[in-house]
């Protein structure tokens, strides 16, 4: 019971000061907290030391003061307060309150030990507290969970991964059992950070997503902070676009809440995304803003990280150009590295030194570069993959600069092996694709090095092997069975409905902006869920040049690549490899874009004749120009053989069959020779499925006609052609022919879609079929188009099918007219049904009107 009125007044004033101090330290204002707590103690001096409330409050104030003092740098003072606090609880009458208070003092001591880096002692203390709390589990669920979580953080700091994980799992169980929802969210958040630390990006993303689900309802204020972590994980996976979108979404919320630590961390992450995206100006701006914020907060380590980000932007810009790097920047990075090392930021210090090494090499100063590189320690198990790859790049560049090309290639090989291990663990096509960004420069260096020394057959063969090692690795996996995710399924269903509604509104001339925004939001959410925890698939080895040559038989393979603005091709014919230089890349890319636009413009069936004539003339001219530049130099090698073409970057949009000298030539396109070999070796199966989507005038006739070609085919059309019915019919089909409207989604290939009666069917969904159809014909617009990520990781609707196990996909790389498509398809299937292989059958079908039938075979011809 409280004593006199004056005494209880003292208690309430002190309690109020304590509360304000807690707010201050919650906002990292620890100096202010110390001041308030000291005042609170002084106030208490006037109270009654025998009053249990006085004892409890004094203990709690001392506990808070200990942590605040430790935060502002005086841990010894903190421990003195804790020692004093420890003497207080014994003065209380025996009971749960006394035991609990004693434990709180020791828990705080452990936390302070952790804050000043004495993790082992902290863990030891936690080890003694935890059993005490466990004795009375029902009453102590909350403090037990909190202490376990803190112990886990200590284990993380000591890189005791197993122990940390054990504690976090236990916390999760406790939180779930006792309905501690917010704590459950926090634990999942921490589990995410733990996964990220050990390089398990899909695991991290999954935990973050689960935490987000909890935060959304139970603690929305913690959500923005979580989004920042999510963005960091995306950056590690190389998905700069997605990370940038995430951050742009949360920044306004963070600014509103004035959480300056979080804003500044978000700015750093956004700057990193900008650097990956090549926008160094934006990166500099963000990094400078973050730097100012951290300085104002007095957070020195983070301020130095912000300064490093700024320097990284500078260095990246210089390295991307041709200017000689200024000595000042090198000196700045070196100095900064020492500062970072002094703060114990080991990985960051390494990055600063590695950037300086690259700049020195660019300046032609190999000896100091070598010395500096010698000071960079070996990567640890938790070193992020981008740092590992940067180290490999530096070693390779140093080897080149000191005349040791073999050593450089060995470094590149080592780097790609490490990158492969990271990729193998990725879940979902998006993540598998994204990883390549970290190996981009190393790949360029290796291919450039081999290219410069390519002489004759052996050299070309070696070059080919390097191309295969560095391109389109996403096609190198045997997909593992999907795990059903009801949340994802629900989201996709909602996306379908929104898209369908938007489409109806568009036709009725009603506004669609709100629906489009909702769709974009759903797409982002569904995208996040597509990053699976389980690996996407079992990796298959890269095909060797000999394997490819053997599989080709009479065919000729043309593997295109651009290096330093020059386009070249490695050809494989009858086991012979040859390098053919094709001239300027930019010009070919520009003409390809123009031809692609011509074909899009030409597609509509009802285009007025004068426009048809003008666009046709333009397309023919551009097709001839490309023929001249691409096919003529290869004429001798390719003869009249069937072709397998591996495109590069923007040339994925090239309508090969429209080039005059390739008219009627059987050809297929593959993202890599390895992907082609894999496709060719897949076994084929029988059943035929015909699908007719809504709103295509020619669909009824086309499907009916195909019915006469394939009398036993399963027919899914009319109101029965829903996405679930179509997916079911596709699973395990031998040949699937789909007539529908199609749309390629340039920014997010996995959401490219085919319109069905209940809304779109997404590439995302076809990629998780148990047994994707052996051969697929997409009689729709654009669905053979690809979005090309760094590392030639090309993916689109057709690509997703191929990567998931389809042998052959026929699709359009531009818009197609309804009539033109129907006619081409009738021709194609007549030949397919009589046993003609797809490449040959399609060659005949497109030759009749190549500009209006821009179809390609992807995969096995």
């Amino acid at each position, binding site marked *: 019971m409280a004593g006199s009125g004056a005494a209880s007044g003292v208690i309430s004033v002190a309690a109020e000061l304590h509360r304000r101090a807690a707010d201050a330290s919650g906002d990292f204002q620890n100096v202010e907290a110390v001041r308030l707590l000291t005042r609170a103690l002084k106030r208490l001096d006037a109270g009654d030391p025998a009053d249990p409330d006085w004892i409890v409050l004094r203990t709690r104030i001392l506990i808070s003061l200990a942590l605040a003092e430790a935060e502002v740098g005086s841990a010894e003072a903190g421990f003195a307060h804790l020692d004093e606090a420890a003497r207080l609880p014994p003065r209380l009458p025996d009971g749960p309150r006394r035991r609990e208070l004693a434990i709180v003092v020791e828990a705080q001591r452990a936390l302070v030990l952790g804050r000043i880096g004495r993790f082992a002692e902290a863990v030891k203390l936690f080890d003694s507290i935890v059993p005490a709390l466990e004795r009375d589990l029902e009453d102590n669920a909350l403090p037990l969970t909190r202490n376990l979580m803190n112990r886990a953080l200590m284990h993380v700091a000591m890189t005791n991964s197993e122990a940390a994980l054990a504690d976090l799992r236990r916390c999760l169980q406790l939180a779930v059992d006792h309905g501690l929802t917010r704590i459950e969210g926090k634990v999942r958040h921490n589990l995410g950070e733990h996964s990220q630390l050990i390089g398990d990006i899909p695991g991290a993303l999954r935990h973050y997503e689960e935490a987000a689900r909890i935060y959304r309802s139970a603690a929305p204020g913690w959500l923005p902070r979580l989004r920042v972590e999510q963005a960091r994980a995306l950056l590690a996976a190389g998905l700069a676009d997605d990370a940038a979108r995430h951050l742009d979404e949360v920044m306004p919320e963070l600014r509103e809440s004035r959480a300056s630590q979080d804003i500044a961390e978000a700015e750093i992450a956004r700057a990193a995304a900008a650097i990956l995206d090549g926008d160094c100006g934006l990166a500099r701006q963000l990094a400078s803003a973050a730097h100012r914020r951290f300085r104002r907060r007095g957070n020195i380590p983070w301020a130095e990280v912000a300064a490093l980000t700024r320097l990284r932007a500078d260095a990246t810009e210089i390295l991307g150009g041709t200017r000689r790097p200024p000595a000042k920047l090198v000196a700045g990075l070196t100095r900064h590295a020492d500062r970072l090392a002094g703060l114990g930021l080991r990985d960051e210090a390494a990055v600063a030194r590695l950037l300086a090494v690259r700049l020195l090499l660019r300046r032609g100063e190999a000896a100091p570069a070598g010395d500096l590189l010698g000071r960079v320690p070996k990567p640890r198990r938790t070193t992020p993959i981008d740092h590992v790859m940067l180290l490999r790049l530096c070693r390779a560049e140093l080897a080149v600069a000191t005349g040791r090309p073999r050593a450089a290639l060995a470094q590149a090989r080592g780097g790609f092996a490490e990158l492969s291990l990271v990729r193998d663990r990725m879940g979902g096509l998006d993540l598998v694709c994204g990883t390549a960004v970290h190996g981009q420069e190393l790949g360029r260096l290796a291919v450039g090095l081999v290219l410069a020394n390519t002489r004759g057959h052996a050299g070309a063969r070696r070059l080919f092997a390097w191309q295969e090692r560095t391109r389109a690795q996403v096609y190198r996996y045997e997909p593992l069975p999907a795990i059903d995710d009801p949340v994802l399924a629900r989201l996709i269903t909602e996306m379908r409905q929104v898209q369908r509604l938007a489409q109806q509104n568009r036709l009725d001339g009603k506004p669609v902006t709100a629906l489009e925004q909702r769709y974009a939001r759903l797409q982002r959410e569904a995208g996040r869920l597509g990053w699976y925890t389980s690996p996407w698939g079992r990796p298959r080895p890269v095909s060797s040049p000999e394997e490819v040559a053997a599989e080709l038989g009479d065919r000729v393979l043309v593997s295109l690549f651009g290096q330093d603005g020059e386009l070249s091709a490695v050809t494989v014919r009858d086991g012979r490899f040859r390098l053919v230089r094709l001239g300027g890349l930019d010009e070919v890319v520009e003409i390809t874009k123009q031809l692609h636009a011509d074909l*899009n*413009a030409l597609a*509509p069936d009802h285009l007025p004749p*004068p426009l048809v004539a003008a666009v046709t003339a*333009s397309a023919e001219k551009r097709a001839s120009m490309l023929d001249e530049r691409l096919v003529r130099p290869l004429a001798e090698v390719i003869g009249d053989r069937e072709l397998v073409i591996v495109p590069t970057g923007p040339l994925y949009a090239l309508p090969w069959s429209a080039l005059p000298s390739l008219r009627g030539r059987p050809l297929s396109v593959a993202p890599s020779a390895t992907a082609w070999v894999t496709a060719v070796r897949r076994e084929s199966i029988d059943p035929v499925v015909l699908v007719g989507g809504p709103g295509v005038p020619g669909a009824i006739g086309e499907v009916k006609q195909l019915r006469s070609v394939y009398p036993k085919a399963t027919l899914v059309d009319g109101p029965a052609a829903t996405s679930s019915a179509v997916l079911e019919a596709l699973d395990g089909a031998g040949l699937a022919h789909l007539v529908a*409207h199609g749309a390629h989604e340039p920014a997010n290939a996995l959401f490219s879609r085919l319109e069905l009666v209940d809304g779109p069917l997404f590439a995302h969904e076809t990629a998780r079929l148990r047994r994707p159809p052996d051969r697929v014909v997409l009689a729709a*617009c654009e669905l053979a188009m690809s979005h090309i990520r760094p590392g030639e990781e090309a993916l689109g609707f057709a690509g997703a099918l191929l990567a998931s196990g389809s042998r052959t996909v026929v699709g359009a790389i531009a818009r197609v007219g*309804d009539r033109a498509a129907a006619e081409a398809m009738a021709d194609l299937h007549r030949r397919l049904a009589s046993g003609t292989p797809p490449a040959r059958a399609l060659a005949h079908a497109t030759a009749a009107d190549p500009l209006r039938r821009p179809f390609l075979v992807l995969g096995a011809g």
Partner: protein
Amino acid sequence: MNDIEVPGGGAFPDDEALLADLGRVLAAVDPPPDGLVERVQFALELENLDFEIAQWQRAEPSLAGVRSITDEGTITFTVSDLTVMINLTRIGQCHRIDGWLVPAAPHGVEVRVAEHGSSATIADEGGRFVLDEVPRGTTQIVISVGGASSRRTVVTPAVVL
């Protein structure tokens, strides 16, 4: 808001209040379209006021006869004897504009975007032109028939791209 000015200020004070109320009601019930003033100003900035305006030929998407539901951004404008067709490709914050002029001739092509200035090119003999990295916004295409020195100018309506 005082949208309605009373000439000479001769109205009774009550009338002015009434008219002001009326102005507010009108502004709420039938506001001028968003961006109308900007579009008028943008159109008036054209230096040569002696021009012909091409009409936008809107195609019914369901009748286009293409196996795509998304409007790929092909727009056609015509005036007496000249047709301009453009195809838009979105690249980041900008557009790439591929265009065709019928009948084909190397006319001058300028694209103006409100608050972003303009960029110009000359079509090839096939009437084909490309303008890269065009900022998005209220856009107008100006064709100098027979080259920049000619007197005949055709403009498209200002459209938000």
